[in-house]
């Protein structure tokens, strides 16, 4: 049995509609946030959980962390059922909500950690060692006496992470951890998460809209849409499945090369050269390159990096999300 | 003037939307009224007073019915002040004092009418002397209505002063709380002013807080005779002028300060 087991998980929400004129009671609508989602995660895995807004990502995380009770199906994390054995379960997990703080707003962050020590009943010695280690890894040493409200967004996220890892959880949930962060903060955050995962074998599940998070961190990615699991596997496989169109930028020595392109390749000419987009399944890359070489002397050739955001957009579109 | 009228109309429509809160508020206020009337009834049982009990019951019901006129501040506006968004409003090409005066008045007018009408109907059908009595005379009723309107003008001016204080200190709860609580006691909400010691009443009835509801209620119950109405209006009018001038001065001072700060 895997560390996290989810079988046919279901969750419905009843949404009240706006009252229509002349009707006494408001009509209700049932929204299926999750319809029979199943997956399992092994200990030490780093899983990315993606999908458009309203796909059911947060609902899954909330059920797994014991906040919500599901309407059907089975869940177990480390042998415990989160919503039934909430207290025993949450001892082993850490949760970082992207938008809401778990620390106290007006007091120095170290005071918040001190209180968390009592909440999680962490032994003093253990707490001191762990705090020192985390403070170093997250570059928080200088900020310990600063109230949370005076920290920048990036500092705040690091402070939250520290708070959620003090009790050495086996499993860490991150809800859009890099949202709103600058590039440097994002990079250092990813580095830290990798370190925590490798050093302690902490299982990490993160929801995100940022494909770079997934590319940099996750060995495995799950795609959720309309309350259903649509993909579960490695990121390259996902890319291959949906990365249908590629872009190439090419510049020739001669101003008007004799370029004969087959059907299905779109191109446009500009000052920087010629931009092409093609589908490797229709026209293999090698074949395209030879066509280009025949046309003239190539002075510059760029295969544009895969733009994962576009890819996701394409994927959502194809899957009708 | 058209700008103020449209602000007034917009707030009226907004007030109409909170029906659920309104029904809850009416029931809550009815309950408070019942408790108070029951209490005064028992008090009167052993110790008859010069002022008849029916007047006290009527006083309590009218106070409860128009409670919303006194409290129920504009929380939107307070949030705006705290967050500093009010400086955007300051840029509008209308007089800000008038703008907020219209806004507050719409809220208080609609809020209290919508609550007062059902409450007074309910209070009128209560049995055994618990309910509200009719006016002392037709003239009593007729003279109370302009007094109530002048009271409304007065309370809006008072609230605008509170707002001006809040803008200065940026702390809505401190000063506002203090002024509101003063209002609760001195307007007769906690204890009818007619039950205050007679010597105190002579002073308290001159305060602006007594002009809001106490003066119109006394005209209604006949505690002030209709022939005194002009004197009552004059006092109310005096306070309206004083409070509005004070409020305008404070808003202008705040505006200058804001411009200087560049906020």
């Amino acid at each position, binding site marked *: 049995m895997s560390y996290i087991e989810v079988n046919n998980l279901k969750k419905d929400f009843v949404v009240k509609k706006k009252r229509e004129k002349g009707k006494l009671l408001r009509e209700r609508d049932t929204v299926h946030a999750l319809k029979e989602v199943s997956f399992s995660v092994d200990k030490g895995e780093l899983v990315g959980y993606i999908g458009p807004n309203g796909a059911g990502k*947060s609902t899954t995380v909330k059920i797994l*962390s014991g906040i919500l009770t599901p309407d059907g199906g089975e869940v177990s994390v480390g042998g415990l059922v989160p919503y039934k054995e909430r207290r025993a379960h*949450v001892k082993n997990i850490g949760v970082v909500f992207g938008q809401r703080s778990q620390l*106290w707003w007006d007091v120095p962050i170290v005071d918040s950690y001190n*209180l968390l020590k009592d909440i999680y009943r962490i032994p003093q010695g253990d707490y001191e060692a762990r705090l020192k280690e985390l403070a170093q890894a997250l570059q928080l040493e200088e900020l310990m006496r600063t109230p949370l409200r005076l920290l920048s967004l990036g500092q705040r996220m690091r402070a939250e992470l520290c708070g959620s890892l003090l009790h050495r959880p086996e499993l860490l949930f991150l809800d859009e951890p890099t949202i709103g962060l600058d590039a440097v903060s994002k990079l250092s955050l990813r580095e830290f998460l990798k370190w925590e995962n490798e050093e302690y074998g902490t299982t990490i599940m993160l929801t995100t809209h940022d494909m770079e998070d997934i590319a940099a961190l996750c060995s495995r990615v799950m795609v959720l849409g309309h309350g259903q699991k649509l993909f579960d596997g490695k990121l390259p496989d996902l890319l291959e499945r949906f990365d249908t169109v590629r872009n190439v930028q090419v510049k020739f020595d001669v101003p008007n090369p004799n370029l004969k392109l087959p059907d299905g390749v779109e191109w446009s000419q500009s000052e920087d050269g010629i931009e092409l987009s093609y589908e490797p399944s229709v026209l293999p890359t090698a074949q395209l390159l030879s066509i280009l070489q025949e046309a003239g002397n190539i002075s510059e050739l760029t295969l544009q990096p895969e733009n994962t955001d576009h890819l996701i957009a394409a994927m959502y579109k194809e899957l009708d999300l | 003037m058209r700008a103020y009228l449209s602000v007034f109309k917009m707030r009226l429509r907004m007030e109409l939307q909170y029906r659920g*809160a309104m029904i809850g508020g009416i*029931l809550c206020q009815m309950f408070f009224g019942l408790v108070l009337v029951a209490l005064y009834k028992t008090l009167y049982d052993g110790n008859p007073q010069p002022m008849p009990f029916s007047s006290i019951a009527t006083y309590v019901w009218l106070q409860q019915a128009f409670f919303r006129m006194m409290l129920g501040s504009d929380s939107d506006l307070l949030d705006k002040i705290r967050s500093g968004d009010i400086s955007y409003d300051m840029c509008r090409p209308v007089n800000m004092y008038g703008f907020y005066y219209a806004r507050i008045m719409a809220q208080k007018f609609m809020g209290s009418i919508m609550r007062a009408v059902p409450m007074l109907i309910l209070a009128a059908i209560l049995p055994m002397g618990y309910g509200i009595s009719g006016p002392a005379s037709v003239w009593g009723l007729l003279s109370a209505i302009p007094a109530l309107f002048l009271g409304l003008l007065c309370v809006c001016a008072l609230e605008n002063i509170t707002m001006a204080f809040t803008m200065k200190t940026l702390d809505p709860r401190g000063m506002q*709380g203090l002024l509101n*609580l003063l209002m609760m006691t001195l307007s007769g909400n906690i204890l009818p002013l007619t*039950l205050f010691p007679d010597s105190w009443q002579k002073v308290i009835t001159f305060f602006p807080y007594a002009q809001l509801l106490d003066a119109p209620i006394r005209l209604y119950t006949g505690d002030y005779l209709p022939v005194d109405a002009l004197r009552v209006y004059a006092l109310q009018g005096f306070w309206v002028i004083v409070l509005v001038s004070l409020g305008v001065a404070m808003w202008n001072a705040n505006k200058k300060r804001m411009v200087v700060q560049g906020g």
Partner: protein
Amino acid sequence: MNTLRLYFKSIGMLLRSHLQYPSSFIMQTIAQLVMEGGEMLAVILIVDRFNNLKGWSGGDLYFFFGMMSVSFYLTEMFGRGITGDFPMMVRTGKLDTFLVRPRGVLTQVLCAGTDPRRITCVAVGVAALIMGSNLSDIVWTPLKALVLVESIAMSCLLILGLFMIEAIFSIFSVKSVELVNAITYGGRSACQYPIDVYPLPLRALFTVIAPFALTLHVPASWILDKPLYGWPAWTAFVTPLSGVLVFGIMTGVFHLGMRHYRSTGS
């Protein structure tokens, strides 16, 4: 024991947060004093005009008022998480963060709110208690002191239990402030006077549903040597326990409600 330590540590921290804005804090504390002073003034003026209320002397009335003030505002001071902040905790998702920690939800809600400004209200209540005790010539015995403490503690639990109704409604995002206020603030307003001045329906309400009569009036009358309805002495010890009963029931309902909690946000 650990839970109690956690509570006081949390409260200490919240207190320091409040003191980060000292002028606002002082201003609000004064405002509270004016408010409760106004309420007290009303009682004094009533005594001044009517002398007594159905056989209860002025001193008795101050004593009842003091009991209610102390109980009510101690509850608001230490139970702010329930008496004021809970709907906000649901709205902002703060409640979610409590659910992912290995402690009781109610414990954490209580740990997350305090209203130290109410200290002046409690002080007014204590002053009223002392005034009432002196005027009514209460002869204090250890037993009476014990009943006083029991009565206040149980009334606090009762008040907390009543405020939990609003908390329970807000779990289902139903707004009920006004209605619940009728029984909480309304209960305070009504029951700061002895219960036997009210007609039967109100007496029944405050004996059976919101039993202030049992937690507060029965023991207080016994302390004043004027037993309510002539009930025997033992009732002064037993009836206040209804406070813990109400609190227990509401806690049960609260936890039942939490099972259907649906959280907010995406």
